[in-house]
């Protein structure tokens, strides 16, 4: 070995880790070329008015005019946005809780489990845009026995109209919503099967009922999956071809009055809003602490309080002792003076 060329510990590993870049190289190129660069470009488009000419695109810088046009003069986007927001906020909890229930039902020891699973995973295969469109056209996407108009009337009496309308749309598209929950059921089921059964046994020995087991074992364990499913559902609902806003963007892109620039502005706004919804749900779920965390926090706080009290008492005791000692000293002094 040559002098002065000492290999530092960890160097070798570091160099090996450089190989990692080689492995992810295709993806790195892809994300720069097909995600980041188009994003920047589309932002640039959104600040321009673009005309497609035979010799290429003609761009005319207009600043934020596209955005102000969306908010001030174009009614379609804002209206579509309103219904999209309401529907997403209502449909996501419905889908996620429904898929959790189905997954729990399927996780039990029942016969014909395979057949039931097959039925519930079927939508993953066939729930694509055009198929759903065809079914919705035939009105096969709503439950036949359900009287939607009655529900609508009932809701209209008690709730503001906008809310009632969106809840009704959830009911009338029930099958569509159920069909969108295939992947979610799959994820929940996989998570439920990973829960250690000894946990339930221990709870049973301690006298926990099924209800308590659900709230204190099942739910905290699948909590990360709930977040995953919520994010997946939001993305799926938003990037779906049935979504009216997506259709609007697509139409605008091809229309004579809109063009690429205007559509880019819409797409940008849309992605910002979608990310905001994802973040909203993430905060809502991860911000909520479960029973144990709360209890542990409370316990810690009480412990601290007790300690403080203890300290206080000790200090007071010390002070009192000192006082007492002083007092005694004085008394002794006085006595000695008296005796003297």
């Amino acid at each position, binding site marked *: 070995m040559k002098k002065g060329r000492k290999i530092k510990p960890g160097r070798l590993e570091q160099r090996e880790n450089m*190989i990692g870049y080689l492995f*992810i190289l*295709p*993806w790195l190129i*892809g994300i720069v070329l097909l995600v980041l660069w188009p994003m920047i470009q589309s932002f640039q488009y959104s600040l321009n008015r673009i005309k497609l000419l035979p010799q290429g695109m003609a761009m005319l810088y207009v600043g934020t005019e596209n955005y102000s046009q969306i908010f001030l003069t174009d009614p379609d986007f804002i209206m579509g946005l309103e219904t999209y927001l309401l529907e997403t906020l209502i449909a996501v909890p419905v889908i996620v809780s429904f898929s959790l229930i189905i997954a729990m039902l399927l996780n039990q020891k029942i016969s014909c489990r395979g057949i*039931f699973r097959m039925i519930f995973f079927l939508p993953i295969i066939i729930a694509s845009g*055009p198929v759903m469109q065809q079914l919705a056209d035939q009105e096969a996407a709503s439950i036949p026995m359900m009287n939607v108009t009655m529900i609508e009337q009932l809701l209209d009496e008690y709730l503001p109209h906008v809310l009632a309308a969106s809840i009704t749309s959830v009911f009338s598209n029930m099958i569509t919503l159920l069909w969108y929950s295939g992947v979610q059921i799959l994820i929940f089921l996989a998570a439920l099967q990973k829960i250690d059964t000894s946990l339930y046994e221990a709870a049973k020995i301690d006298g926990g009922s099924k209800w308590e087991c659900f709230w204190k074992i099942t739910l905290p364990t699948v909590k990360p999956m709930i977040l995953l499913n919520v*994010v997946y559902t939001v993305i799926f609902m938003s990037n779906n071809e049935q979504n009216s806003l997506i259709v609007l963007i697509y139409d605008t892109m091809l229309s004579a009055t809109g063009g690429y620039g205007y559509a880019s502005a819409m*797409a940008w706004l849309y*992605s910002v809003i979608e990310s905001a919804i994802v973040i909203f749900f993430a905060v809502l779920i991860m911000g909520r602490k479960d029973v144990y965390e709360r209890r542990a926090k409370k316990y810690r706080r009480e412990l601290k309080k007790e300690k403080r009290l203890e300290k206080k008492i000790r200090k007071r005791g010390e002070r009192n002792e000192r006082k007492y000692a002083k007092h005694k000293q004085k008394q002794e002094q006085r006595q000695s003076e008296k005796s003297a």
Partner: protein
Amino acid sequence: MQNTNKSRSKDSLKKVLSAQNREQMKYKVRKFIFGSKDTEGAGKLAVIYLLLISIGFVYLYPVLYMISKSFMNLNDLLDTSVNWIPSSLYTNNYVQAFKSMDYWKTFRDSIVIAGVPTLINVVICAIVGYGFARYEFKGKKILIGLLLFSFILPPQATMMPTYVFYTNIGLINSLKAFIVPALLGQGIKSQIFILIFYNFFRQIPKVLIEAAKIDGAGHFRIFRKIALPSAAPAILVVFLFSIVWYWNESYLTQLYVVGAFTSSADTYHWSSLIVSLKNFENSYNNARSVAGSGMVDINESIKMAGTMLSILPLLIMYLVLQKQFVESVDRAGITGE
């Protein structure tokens, strides 16, 4: 006197016994219906089955509806007394839909459109996932964040520049428009597949890799000989889902591969079943005007037959591979955080 006393005591004993019996019966019945802590009660099971069956019916309802409608002839459609079961097995709808969709050619195209990018997707996502899982390079966390971000981003945000870009380098209206993104790890939902592989490869014990390294295996050899063979469940999941999602993608297929706006005669004209279903009405009317009087007017039954035909290959695949579909998800560790 003694006798009556005796009989009375017997009576009371009987009463007590019968009361006990009744209690026991009650307990047994309750146990039978609600179940104890160890076993499920029959009543509870019945409720579970009832729920599963009724929800299952709701799930299957559109499919059943589709099948039943697709076999109805025009008279059955108009007849209000025919609700579910058609009066005769009328297969002409399928024949008509089959013709108007140009089924064999479309079917072959669909398989190629779904299959080729899927194969590339599996390979590339496995490589990238392995890279993320095995090596600790600088900026890994940021890159994973970027991966998640690109998953959240709606495709519309990047669609227009991408379309222009593809047009400029001549990818549009050919299968290349699907192959190139898949090669660069940006295919349809590739992010999910990368994450699946990432999760899976992280579970491979490091000892195994170190042992291979000591035996003189290089990085790619370790990947090929140790990581890949053990990732069979993950590969299966990615393969199945990728094929399904590519098959069902109508929007991007129409935009990039089929060519919605520009269709030149000299190149091969791609088509896929889902896209042709999307434009079913138009294509049917076109076919009808070409064929002349041989085809009837379009109606619901023909549309349903077309829908059925377009999902039939996937349905068959599902029925054959349903066990793999259901089980692979547990084994692939999608949820192994």
